[in-house]
């Protein structure tokens, strides 16, 4: 039988393909539709948060930091409640990471402040003696790209039905709405409003000046994103 197959490359290739495709069909297809329902309190990202998330990805923060808390006492003691599938409903891509060279960041917004991040991102070893994380001083100079964040918001709203402009149920029973800007200009304006609040808690004068001039440094967007991780 195999000698016969080895003389027929086409059938051989079909055979190999069926055998390797089998596991994917069984494992991935059945659960695909239902696994991504958001939990109560999970909101889509705002303009500035999404901009910051793109800064996070651009600098491969996920190469060293996970965003996945496993259901062990040691992890919930250290990082907070273990992760729930629905909390990731709006994460495209997922940012679980595969290596914790630094600590998990899934709920870093619960226990770190804007002020802490500002110092830490400039010089990590000054805030955490012994840290091997490099500093990211260029984030204080580079301007964040809110237009691409806007493009991503429009894309996920249109293509995947992410509920912007719709009431989102919160844990206390109230509803919140995350607004989808109608143009890149409006997106920038909304992001700037958020950025002003973040910059108010920061000390770096260059950052404050940039925000006052209507520009958003990458660091401000990144901190807005990190603060939103709860």
């Amino acid at each position, binding site marked *: 039988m195999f000698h016969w197959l*080895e*003389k027929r*490359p086409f059938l*051989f*290739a079909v055979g190999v393909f069926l*055998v*390797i*495709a*089998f596991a*994917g069909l069984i*494992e*991935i297809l059945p659960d*695909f539709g239902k*696994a*991504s329902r958001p939990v109560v309190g999970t909101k889509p990202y705002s303009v500035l948060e999404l901009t910051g998330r793109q800064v996070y*990805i*651009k*600098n*491969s923060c996920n*190469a*060293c930091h*996970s965003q996945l808390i*496993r259901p*062990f*006492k*040691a992890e919930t*003691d*250290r990082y907070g409640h273990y*992760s729930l599938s629905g909390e*990731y409903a*709006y*994460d*495209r*891509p*997922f940012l*679980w990471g*595969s*290596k*914790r060279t*630094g600590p998990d960041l899934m709920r870093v917004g619960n226990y770190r402040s804007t002020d802490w991040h500002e110092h830490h991102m400039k010089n990590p070893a000054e805030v955490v*003696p*012994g*840290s*091997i*994380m*490099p*500093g990211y*001083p*260029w984030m204080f100079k580079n301007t964040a*790209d809110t*237009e691409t*964040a*806007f*493009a*991503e918001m*429009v*894309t*996920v709203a*249109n*293509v995947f039905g992410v509920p912007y402009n719709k009431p989102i149920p919160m844990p206390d029973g109230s509803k919140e709405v995350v607004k989808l800007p109608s143009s890149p200009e409006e997106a920038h304006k909304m992001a700037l409003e958020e950025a002003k609040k973040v910059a108010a808690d920061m000390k770096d004068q260059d950052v404050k000046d940039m925000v006052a001039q209507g520009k958003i440094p990458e660091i401000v967007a990144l901190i807005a994103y990190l603060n939103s991780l709860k």
Partner: protein
Amino acid sequence: MENRPLEYDYTVAKMFMFAAIVLGIVGMTIGVIIAFELAFPSVNTIFGSGVAEYTNFSRLRPLHTDAVAFGFTLSGIFATWYYVGQRVLKVSMAESKFLMMIGKLHFWLYIIGVAAVVVSLFMGYTTSKEYAEFEWPIDIAIVVVWVLWGISIFGLIGIRREKSLYISVWYYIATFLGVAMLYLFNNMEVPTYFASGGHGDIMHSVSMYAGTNDALVQWWYGHNAVAFVFTVPIIAMIYYFLPKESGQAVYSYKLSLLSFWGLMFVYLWAGGHHLLYSTVPDWMQTMGSVFSVILILPSWGSAINMLLTMKGEWQQVANSPLIKFMVLGSTFYMFSTLEGPIQAIKSVNAIAHFTDWIVGHVHDGVLGWVGFMVMASIYHMAPRVFKREIYSKGIMNAQFWIQTLGVVLYFSSMWIAGITQGMMWRAHDEFGNLAYSFIDTVTVLHPYYTIRAVGGLLYLTGVFMWAYNIYKTMTAGRVVEETELKNASPMGA
């Protein structure tokens, strides 16, 4: 005329051999740099703080993994295909102008793709998905490159004289199909520029899948990219080069059958072991664990088949550094494919996941098995391609021992680092509080990070010796006759 032996045409094989050498040096140099960055953070700004954005760990890490996986290894795979394919199918590339054109196009588009990857990753264009960081325009280029390779494979098979496909060809076909399927599904993404009516960065895209689903597809891909780049085609190499170099027949045809079909069926299930204790459904996690353990069977089947091929001829291991590379390569393959399943068991994974033990596991596989096999294959091909003797057996021997020491330092330090850190993360004191702050579990790793960096540096030194040896073979090796090239490769002192 009719009885004249076939003149194989190694033009394309040669081009990919050079690419493997250059990209091996690039990828592993970056690897050594980032290893030193973890041990000594000041290395992050070693080229000045002005360019720190481009030289710090986070920007370089994806470049390292992609350069060695899709640069060095893939070039090695292509080089061996363009060499082995002709020989086992008994047909020369020179017989088909079309296939020669496709082969060259394949090479040059691949090089353009590699250049685009390097530039875009330096600039920070990344999808964040491991081993699938490339943004959508590069993904499209990669699909084209892959299709060209497919045309090469099936084109050559189409005009073959030897009707039965040799074992290596099974594995090359599987590599082609496996990567095609995995890559396409994992890189489904929507370019935001077009979907938003022309706003923002044209390179940016958003994943078709969200959250847990995205993770599931990514690790179905990530795990099996390892299967179909670091395992399947490397087995194709060893099934050709070890019997050829040693002059021994493959030990068992039945074992090769069992291993091949077993590997094909089992490997794809095991991706779930990357997601243990995550939010993917429990049954998939368990399936990932179970199939990872079963995976020992086909993996060891191939490795044992190779080791037994040397039965009665073990003096060759002592005499030939080329055989040494391949036999130790098979041994590291066995070692790595035992270690992987152990890490896939849930209770072990609870400690090992997110630690350096995983990094150690990857590297005993890629340095000890993949790297050794790619370099050994190119050593074997060099005398046939350049019609010259391998320049120096002495350099090859020294390289073997330096690199073996490097690999041992690498994985042993990473085991200790990983288990130390995993245990410290979970340690509680007598009152039930966490015993260590996170930074305690980082500073403790310094000696191991240093040893790992030194191990990596030793391995890189060996890569330079290999490159030098191949270069000298091309330019200064003794010219050899066809009769000297039957089995054991001719080597100078």
